[in-house]
């Protein structure tokens, strides 16, 4: 297992959001995290990255116990994050956003990212805050790729992207997967997810309530109905 | 224990303050009433600052200027034989209001630290102006010719009377500001603190609300200035310097901003601990500074926050 969560309980202030999450993700595996609004998907991601300290439970990355480790240690263990709401650096130019936190070695460099998102190349000298919503989303993905992670975590990474770009990103994620990158992805586009991932995990009120393959999900309309309202 | 609300803390505080003069007298330290009165005057000033700082996110670093305006209004009128508060207060309020409207209209174009600094600039201008006017004693200040009167009565004559006048005024202003901050006006003010663009998008022009609050706050501070002039029987530009403004911010934040009760607590804690420490050592700034640092680092939401936290356990 590259990433393993065991019995994670976490929350904000007084209110508990995650009520004991167990989740494992093998090297090169792609997993989708599903669930309705406010069920704790983002909270899970924040806990994985050490941005939120779990009140109990254990987080392992590549066999190392990293529970309570600061975010940068976890990231350096090979995790790349495309956060919810983009969170690009507004005071840096597009290119600086990509370069500032870049880490090697690995396949990703500026040229590759620009090839994936030509729109970013056009705007590379512009300030991050001047980008359109979709451009910021591209930048957030590019920035995470530039850290050359072994596991890429995408929290609603296609939100606000035009259909054409969106399908390009799904294609790209498919290629990355094929090259052996592990992926943990949150998205509402179940069709595209199903083509990408090995396994779906559904969260409901801070607990894992169902998991299975794309075929299982397709075969169980009740799960889709009950937990996802599709 | 039930969580302590800001209101209950304030009520408790007032109940605690009410018998203090008698307690001090019994302890054989009646002078402490005078010290406490001074702390109450600063509590009024801090209260006024909280309206714009805590509720409007306008951190004025020139608020001491209003204290000075009030003090000089009392001082200058008294020097000309006008001791009636019925004249002094309107003049103080008008002067402070005009100064606030003019400087506020300019300052409110800026935000955040820029607002802090532009209000500092206006405060310093007022300070240097009064320092250079020899007609009013310039830098040396002027002695208050006579204590203020109110339609012939003498609310500031005698330690006890002064104390209770100030306490009553503080309580009344606290109640008044509590109502204001919960009113429609107060909501809009707090809304502009939270997210100005959002407020504009639903149809409010924040400027008018901010300016109104700014002027109101300056006028209340001027009222505190009138009291301060009577308390010290002296008026000096040093009431208006930036250090004073900084201390007032410290009182508000230390006590817990945006709560009205907090600043009152903060002012009392600030003035009284300064007085207490100064009795032990001339190097009192060292322990005082340390206390401020520790108080902020280890409480959230100021002293009031700490009190509330205790009540919850």
């Amino acid at each position, binding site marked *: 297992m590259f990433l393993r969560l065991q019995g994670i309980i976490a929350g904000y202030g007084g209110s508990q959001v995650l009520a004991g999450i167990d989740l494992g993700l093998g090297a090169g595996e792609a997993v989708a995290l599903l669930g309705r609004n*406010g069920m704790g998907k983002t909270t899970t991601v924040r806990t994985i990255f050490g941005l939120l300290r779990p009140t109990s439970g254990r987080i392992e990355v590549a066999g190392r116990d990293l529970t309570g480790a600061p975010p940068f240690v976890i990231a350096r263990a090979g995790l790349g994050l495309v956060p919810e709401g983009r969170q690009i650096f507004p005071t840096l130019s597009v290119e600086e956003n990509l370069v500032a936190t870049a880490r090697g070695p690995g396949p990703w460099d500026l040229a590759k990212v620009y090839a994936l998102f030509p*729109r970013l190349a056009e705007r590379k000298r512009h300030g991050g805050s001047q980008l*359109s919503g979709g451009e910021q989303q591209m930048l957030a993905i590019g920035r995470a790729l530039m850290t050359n992670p072994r596991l890429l975590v995408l929290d609603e990474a296609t939100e606000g992207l*035009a*259909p054409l770009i969106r399908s390009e990103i799904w294609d790209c994620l498919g290629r990355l997967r094929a090259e052996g990158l592990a992926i943990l992805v949150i998205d509402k586009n179940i069709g595209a997810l199903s083509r990408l991932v090995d396994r779906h995990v559904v969260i409901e009120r801070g607990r894992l309530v169902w998991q299975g393959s794309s075929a299982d999900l397709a075969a169980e309309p009740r799960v889709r109905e009950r937990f996802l309202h599709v | 224990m039930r969580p302590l609300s800001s209101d209950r803390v304030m009520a408790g505080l007032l109940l605690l303050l009410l018998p203090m003069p008698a307690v001090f007298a019994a302890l054989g330290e009646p002078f402490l009433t005078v010290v406490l009165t001074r702390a109450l005057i600063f509590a009024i000033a801090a209260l006024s600052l909280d309206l714009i700082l805590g509720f409007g996110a306008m951190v004025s670093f020139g608020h001491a200027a209003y204290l000075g305006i009030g003090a000089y209004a009392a001082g200058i009128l008294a020097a000309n034989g006008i001791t009636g508060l019925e004249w002094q207060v309107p003049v103080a309020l008008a002067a402070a209001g005009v100064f606030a409207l003019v400087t506020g209209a300019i300052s409110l174009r800026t935000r955040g630290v820029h607002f802090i600094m532009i209000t500092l600039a206006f405060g310093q201008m007022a300070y240097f102006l009064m320092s250079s006017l020899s007609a009013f004693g310039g830098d040396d200040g002027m002695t208050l010719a006579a204590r203020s009167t109110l339609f012939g009565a003498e609310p500031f004559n005698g330690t006890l009377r002064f104390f209770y006048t100030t306490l009553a005024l503080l309580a009344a202003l606290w109640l008044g500001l509590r109502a204001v901050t919960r*009113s429609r006006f107060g*909501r809009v003010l707090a809304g502009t603190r939270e997210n100005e*663009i959002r407020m504009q*998008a*639903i149809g409010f022009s924040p400027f008018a609300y901010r300016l109104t609050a700014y002027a109101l706050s300056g006028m209340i501070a001027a009222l505190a200035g009138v009291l301060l002039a009577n308390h010290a029987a002296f008026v000096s530009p040093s009431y208006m310097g930036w250090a004073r403004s900084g201390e007032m911010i410290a009182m508000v934040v230390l006590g817990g901003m945006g709560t009205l009760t907090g600043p009152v607590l903060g002012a009392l804690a600030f003035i009284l601990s300064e007085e207490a420490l100064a009795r032990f050592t001339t190097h009192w700034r060292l322990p005082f500074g340390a206390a401020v640092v520790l108080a902020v680092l280890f409480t959230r939401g100021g002293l009031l926050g700490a009190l509330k936290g205790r009540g919850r356990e």
Partner: protein
Amino acid sequence: MTPALSVRGLSKSFDALKVSDAITFDLAEGEIHAIIGPNGAGKTTLIHQLSGSLAPDAGRILLGGEDITRLSMAARARRGLARSFQITSILPGFTALENVALAVQARSGSSFRFLRPAASERALNEAAAAALAAAGLCGTEGRIAGTLSHGEKRQLEIAIALAMQPKVLLLDEPLAGTGHRESAALLQLIAGLKGRLSIVLIEHDMEAVFALADRISVLVYGRVIATGRPEAIRADAEVRAAYLGDEEES
């Protein structure tokens, strides 16, 4: 009949970048007019200019026949122009109910009232609660808005806009970030508004756009390259090449 909103030759540049290039269109009374286009085409910038947070370089904006090009954002809002923000914009320290109640307050009477507590004004609270419910946020009234989940915040944006009871509503990607059930509910909500008020809708969710819109304009590099009924746009080759691709999503 005068259109609810008409835009004439609106132009805006950031340095060398032309983000609005002589944009002209009409929003008929009661219609939903969708604006689609690639990322960075200038859709949000257009909304900024319509709502008054950005001044255009040239062109005019008419609301119900009245020229509002020079009016401030607040003045436009008071005349019945409401908007939602692409990047969530709420009052994070207020409760959800207070967020909406302020919007109600803005259209009902003066806010220079200093003494009566606003929290006890029943009219404000009732209207606000109704708007929250309409946006699918029952039960969140007392929660601090900043602690809502991303999707819930998106819904709150809609509730605030609705509470203003606008004549014209500008929606910038209202569905982005909402889950399936919520977006279905919102879709229904917006559909229900059709006819009662006029809506400019920006959305990348094509299903929603084709389901809701009476007319669609396609914006590319600041220019409207096509305007028409949904079927026509879907079939337009140029639009497919620039924006839609051949994606078929579930």
